[in-house]
């Protein structure tokens, strides 16, 4: 092992660190939206809304998926590859279910006349929830890649870094959703 690699022993892996910076960046984008939302709320023509109950189900789903990906990571660490693969698939399915539930929520809002252009408050709701769903979609794509490599017979390298990176990202979008949900319930 070269001197440089030894020196880096104490430090966090660059890819993991890059992810943390990226998460700060994503946080700033949502901070931009939510602060714009707070400013707009105090101005004229703001209509308050009540979120349909389906968003509670989706919250349960995403929390469950965080548990499954955490277990998947542990399984990987213990080299229990069969269990790991199963848990990745379960997480993937839960992620897809989450997006479907969000879509159902959108449909229910729309049917009640709370359309994208009906009021600024609804426009904000669609954009904030929609962009969060896009971030989940990004996580799903990453999980598919992970899933593909978990089944690849060529890979003999037990590299935990990508698993940890995706797992951290997944926890982040989970946490982000819980924050957004609380935000949308408390400040409307």
């Amino acid at each position: 092992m070269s001197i440089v690699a030894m020196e880096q022993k104490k430090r966090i892996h660059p890819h993991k660190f890059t992810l943390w910076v990226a998460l700060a960046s994503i946080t700033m984008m949502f901070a931009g939206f939510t602060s714009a939302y707070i400013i707009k709320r105090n101005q004229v023509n703001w209509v308050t809304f009540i979120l349909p109950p389906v968003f509670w189900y989706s919250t349960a789903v995403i929390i469950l998926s965080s548990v499954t990906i955490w277990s998947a990571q542990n399984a990987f660490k213990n080299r229990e590859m069969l269990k790991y693969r199963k848990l990745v698939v379960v997480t993937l399915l839960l992620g897809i279910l989450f997006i479907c539930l969000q879509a159902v929520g959108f449909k229910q809002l729309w049917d009640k006349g709370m359309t994208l252009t009906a009021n600024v408050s609804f426009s904000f709701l669609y954009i904030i929830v929609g962009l969060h769903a896009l971030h989940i979609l990004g996580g799903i794509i990453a999980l598919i890649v992970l899933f593909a490599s978990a089944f690849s017979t060529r890979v003999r390298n037990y590299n935990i870094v990508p698993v940890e990176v995706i797992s951290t990202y997944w926890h982040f979008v989970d946490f982000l959703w819980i924050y957004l949900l609380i935000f949308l319930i408390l400040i409307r």
Partner: protein
Amino acid sequence: MSTTVILQESDVQVGYDTHQEHSHHESFITKYVFSQDHKMIGKQFLITGMIWAIIGGFFSVIFRLQLGYPESTFPWLEDLLGHWAKGGKLQPEFYYALVTMHGTILVFFVLTAGLSGTFANFLIPLQIGARDMASPLLNMLSYWFFFSASIVMMSSLFVQTGPASGGWTIYPPLSALGDASSGSKIGMDLWLASMAMFIVSQLLAGLNYISTILNLRTKGMSMTRMPLTIWALFFTAVLGVLSFPVLLSGAILLLFDRNLGTSFFLSDIVVNGKILPNEGGSAILFQHLFWFLGHPEVYIIILPAMGISSEVLSVNSRKPIFGYMAMVGSLFAIAILAFLVWAHHMFVTGLNPFLGAFFVLLTLLIAVPSAIKVFNWLTTLWRGNIRFTPAMLYAIGFVSMFISGGLTGIFLGNSSLDIHLHDTYFIIAHFHIVMGVAGFFGMYAGVYHWFPKMYGRFLNNTMGYIHFWVTLIGAYLIFWPMHYEGLAGMPRRYYDFSGWESFKMFAGLNQFISFISILVFAAQLLFVFNFVYSIFKGRKVTTQNPWKANTLEWTTPIRPGHGNWEGEIPEVYRGAYDYGKDGRDFIPQTEQIGENESHH
């Protein structure tokens, strides 16, 4: 932890097995086009930035012709621009398009991507002692996102209705309503698409710079031993990563307003006698989102120029930089304050005066770290053994511009004065000097200084001196008189001043400014010629360390390959500024501390 390290070696694409690095085959495509070598990516940013600078600079020459000679016609303009300049006279809507594109190109494509893109890529791994960036792939992607953004922005110049024309700040409602002006149509959509790609490019790049600096420094390279260029590029990346996403959120909302009928920024608007259905939006909200990026953006431009100038000043004064920790601290202070002053761009929007006072205070606070930096640059020069290379002249010129432009910033930071000076030529003069010209001077200092490392040859000095003096004197001649015009109330963004009795007295001055701007533009073409000529025919570099500098990039071979060092990465034992110590001209960072060595 040891597992992590073993995996890391196989995972980070530029590994530590140097023999493999230097022998691997590179085709033309992987070496020059889709390169993952940080040095090549840096050069790609530089050359793309230069092409943009020529285009953006040329635009300013065309609209200066209109401002200087409003009653003349130039038949060649029609040959060049077609219906933009019918009868040889620039049409008003295309005047606005040119002004908008000049701002967009220079602020984002040249002074952001061309400046920090070039030097962060080129210098970070070389100066901290790393083989490449933390993720060379992300790095390559960042260039190609920038390239794609460039293509889209370029294509907007060729659409029938012209490119975006609502100013580089793209305030709604002008930017949100397709019917508002010809430049609000497809040109505006292309602008937004291009900027979205640009933001992605900046974010990928910034993530990489930060993780590289924090994680891949060589042994002994503690944070406080890093050259100031790296500190400056680090803070620049932090600013970019935290502020560009907020612009992205503003742009997304704008995109919805433009295309999907939402009303984030629109309310009670009548266009051509037709009342629009939009209600409840606020145009000011966009300004908050825009300037939350827009102000840090100013520092994204100026911080790399500060870092480069600090390095060049110290190397060419043969003296340590005065107050290294104060320099780092003031960069940090500027980076923090950058996020807290955005509303000083909005004093005349009806902002609550109480809130205005808060922003005035924070804005004026920036003078403190700025003054510390200026003091330290001047004391670094004081009694130095100065070598007046073109790079050094540009670094000194940078300090001059930063002082001149910074002082007018104190005027503008006061809301009571700003109400009078807002949107006049005083503002134009201020930000061109402190951000535009100073940013360019930092960039030129960097290019002249590191050209030997980039291409293994020197830039021609005579052409360099001509370039410097024409640019320095020309820049002052262009922007100094604008302060007077602005104090007299001459507003920016006007197409033709000849119709106003109060501004007729400036007709001669405007002509003079336009004439000088053509000269200065010509001097920049001389630089481009020098650059291209010297790549192929310049004097060859024969020694490893031609400037006798301490930093690590000069310990690599004259033309370093991918991986930078042929053997092990050198270890670092000292800071980057041991010049003129213990009777020795310079002591490289790789030299161990001697037993009887004095402390600086």
